[in-house]
């Protein structure tokens, strides 16, 4: 028995109050867990779908990049890509899924379609590869947002589940047991008292009759 208690009425009513709180907390936590899991499932489905798409498209882009490299010398590919394009920008916000802070990312298209290198000395295959990759960007950003959300939700669900289980299998049974044993003890005292009174009364009666 982990809970220390004195067998008094005071203590029992205190424990009863704790039990009520624990039960209510348990119910709330359980609801929270169920709802988080429900949302998590929709997110993770989306995550899986996005990842499959990204993996397919990205492999394609990578493949065309390999072909592009084959049509040009290594040095000229590196030269063409040495100057970075206008940095890709995202709008960063944060949302909340059941009080879990999750990132909200929106891709801001740069607007310019121009390639960051000159046409001289570069092959059209490279253009195609770069274009494919650039088209992939919004998808990649969405994947980043959804995957991060899934990570965070999975973490939260694990924590909540632990709390639910701790309440359900440890706290609540312990409190119930403590309350039960206090009431047994109090009843026992009551009976002891009653017997003693009866006994004394009998003894007094016997004395009078003598």
């Amino acid at each position, binding site marked *: 028995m982990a809970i220390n208690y004195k067998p008094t009425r005071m203590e029992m009513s205190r424990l009863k109050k704790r039990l009520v709180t624990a039960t209510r907390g348990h119910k709330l936590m359980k609801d929270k867990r169920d709802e988080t899991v429900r949302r998590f499932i929709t997110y993770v*489905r989306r995550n899986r779908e996005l990842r499959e798409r990204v993996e397919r498209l990205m492999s394609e882009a*990578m493949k065309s990049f390999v072909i592009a490299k084959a049509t040009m010398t290594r040095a000229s590919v590196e030269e063409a890509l040495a100057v970075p394009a206008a*940095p*890709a920008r995202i709008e960063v916000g944060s949302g909340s899924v059941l009080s879990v802070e999750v990132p909200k990312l929106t891709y801001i298209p740069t607007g310019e379609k121009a390639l960051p290198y000159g046409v001289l000395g570069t092959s059209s295959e490279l253009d195609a590869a770069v274009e494919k990759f650039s088209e992939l960007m919004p998808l990649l950003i969405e994947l980043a947002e959804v995957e991060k959300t*899934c990570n965070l939700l999975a973490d939260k669900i694990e924590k909540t589940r632990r709390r639910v289980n701790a309440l359900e299998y440890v706290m609540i049974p312990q409190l119930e047991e403590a309350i039960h044993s206090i009431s047994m003890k109090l009843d026992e005292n009551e009976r002891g008292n009653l017997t003693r009174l009866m006994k004394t009364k009998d003894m007094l009666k016997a004395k009078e009759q003598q």
Partner: protein
Amino acid sequence: MADIAMIGDKDSVLIGRAAGLDVYFETDGAAAGRLIDRLAKENTRIIFVTEPVFEAAAETVNKYKSRPFPAIIPVPDSKGATGAAMRNVRANVEKAIGADILF
């Protein structure tokens, strides 16, 4: 300073530069881990890493898992997807639900 960075072997991530990403060539797990730490400090929001690097730097990656930023996202490299990223998604499901019910 860009919002988005990409880490991986040269052949795979060079193309990211054309799309306006901050590109770093790194394949060693420990060095990639340090790089991720540095990028996180510099407020990079998304870090794309190729799957081999993602696995090599797993320790650092896990450290940032429970924070909203940066999002460290595995992507396939020039050799194609290895399945490491999908395994990661699956691990999430197992962690949250206790069983792999989606796949």
